[in-house]
C-alpha cells in the first residue's frame, strides 16, 4: 500500500510535468476547444443583444438590437435596447425607433456628436431613459433603458 501511494504520487507529478510542457505549445488548440463550449459566449448585458433590424441610410447603417432583459434565472423587469450607428455617420443623429416591432414608435432620439449630447423623447411608458451613449470604433452606440 505504501509503495502504491508513492508510485501514484510520482506518476501524478510526472503527468503534471507533461501537462505543463504541452500547455504553451498547445495553448491555441486548447483555447479553441474551450471557446466552443456552450457557455463560452459573452452575456447579452455586455454585447448589447442580437441584431433585430437594420436600417440602411445615406452613409450609415442603424442596427436596432433585440431588447435585453437577461437575468440569472429568467428575465428581469428592467433592461435596455441598444442602437448602433455604423459607417460614416453625420454630426447629428436623429431617429424615431420602434424597438418592439408593434408598428408604433416608442421613442425619438437625437444625438449631437460634436457636443456629445443625447436627447431622448419617450413615446412609450416602457421607455425610461438613456443609459450609455458613446462613440465607438464603428460609429456610435446608445443603450436606452426600458422595462418589460
Amino acid at each position, binding site marked *: 500500500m*505504501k509503495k502504491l*501511494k*508513492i*508510485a*501514484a*504520487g*510520482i506518476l*501524478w*507529478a*510526472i503527468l*503534471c*510535468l507533461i*501537462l*505543463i*510542457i504541452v*500547455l*504553451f*505549445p498547445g*495553448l491555441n488548440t*486548447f*483555447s*479553441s476547444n*474551450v*471557446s466552443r463550449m*456552450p*457557455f*463560452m*459566449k*459573452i*452575456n*447579452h*448585458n*455586455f*454585447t*448589447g443583444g442580437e441584431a433585430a433590424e437594420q436600417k440602411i441610410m445615406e452613409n450609415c447603417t442603424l442596427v436596432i438590437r433585440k431588447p435585453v432583459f*437577461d*437575468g*440569472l*434565472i429568467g428575465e428581469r423587469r428592467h433592461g435596455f435596447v*441598444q442602437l448602433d450607428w455604423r459607417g460614416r455617420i453625420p454630426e447629428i443623429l436623429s431617429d424615431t425607433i420602434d424597438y418592439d416591432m408593434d408598428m408604433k414608435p416608442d421613442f425619438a432620439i437625437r444625438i449631437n456628436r460634436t457636443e456629445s449630447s443625447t436627447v431622448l423623447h419617450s413615446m412609450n411608458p416602457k421607455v425610461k431613459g438613456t443609459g*450609455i451613449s*458613446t*462613440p*465607438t*470604433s*464603428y460609429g456610435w*452606440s446608445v*443603450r436606452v433603458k426600458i422595462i418589460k
Partner: protein
Amino acid sequence: MDEVITNQSLNKSFGKSLLYTLPMFLITFAFISGGRINFSDHSGILAILLTFLGMNILYFLMHYTGKTDKFRAILFIIFALSLSFTLIKNMVAIRHSMSFSQADIVECKIPFCHLVIPMMILPAAFTKSIIFPGTILGGFANISSMVVLWLVATIVLGRGFCSWGCFYGGWDDGFSRFRKKPVIKKISGYWKWMPFAVLLMVALTAAISLTPTYCSWICPFKAVTEFEQVTSVESAAKAGMFISLFGGLVVVLPMLTRKRTQCSFLCPLGAINSLSNKITPFIVKIDKKVCNECLKCVDVCPLFALTPEDVKSGNVSVFCSKCGKCVDACPRKAIHYGLKGIPAGSMKNFSRNIFLFVSFLFIAVFSSGSIITVLKSIFNLFI
C-alpha cells in the same frame, strides 16, 4: 545555534546544477523564441536573449545554492512590474489614457484576467454565458486562453499559482520585502479566512447582478492596470476604493508586516486555489523526526499557511503557496517540498527538482512576453 543537518543538503555542485538547468534551457529557448526570431529586430533579439539568459541563471542558482524563494521572488516581482508596464503602455498608446471608456465595454474590448474566474462560475452555469466584456478568442488576454492557463496551472500547482503564476502577486510580495524586520508582528490568523468570505460575497453579488463585482468595486490592482473612466460619483468612488485598497493592502501593510496581506486577506481566487491544493501532487511537508519546533517557518510564512499547531502536527495548511520561504529558512531542513504519497523526509531532492522544473517553467514562459516587451521598450530608447 541550531545544528544544521547537511547530509540532506539541497544544493548541488556547479556541474550538476548546469546539467539540471539544461532541460529548462532548451525548453525555454523553444517556447520563448517561438521558433521564430527576427534577426533584423536588434532590440527584440537583445530582449529575448537577456530574458532567456536571466531566467536560466535564476533556475541554475536555485539548484546551485539550494535556495528557492529569493530567486523565485526576483522573477515574480519583475513579472508583476513588467505586466503592469506593458498594459499601461498599450492603453496609453491606443486610448491615450489608463482608463477604459464605455465604448470599450460596449465593444467588449476589456482584457481578461484570472481574478474574474470566481465570479464567472455561477452565471456561466445558469445563463450559459460569460459576464465579462472581453473577447472569447483572439486578441490580447482573451478569455479562453486565460481560463486554460489558470485551469492547468491550478490543477498542477494548486495554490502554488499564487507564488509562481499570478501576475499581481509580485506587487505585495515585493513590498513585503522592503523592511528587514516587521513593525506589526502579531496578526490574528482569523483574518486568513476573509478571502473565502470575499469569494462567497463576490460570487453571489456577481451572479445576482450579472456584473464582475470584484473587478468593478474592489480589485486593488486596478490602480496599476486599468480602470473605468471617472465620469460620475460612482466611478470616482470606485477609483477611490482601488487606490485605497492598493495603498493599504498591497503597499503599506506588506511593508509593515512582511506578509502578503492582499493575497492573504482579500483575493477570492486565492481561496479557490487553496481548495485546489487538495488536487495538486506537490505539497510542502514537515519531517517531524528532524523538526525541533523552533517555529522559524511560522514567522517567515507570508500567507499565514503555518501555525504552531500545524508544525506540531506536521501538516502544512491548504493556504500554502509553495513559495519556498519556509524551506529556505529552516535551519534543520525539516520542512521541504514533497509529493503526495511519499512520506515526509523521503525523496526530498527528487520532489524539489520535479516541483521546481514544473513551477519555474510555468512562470518563465508565462512571464516572458511582458518582460521581453519591457526590455525591448528600454532598448529602443538607446538603439
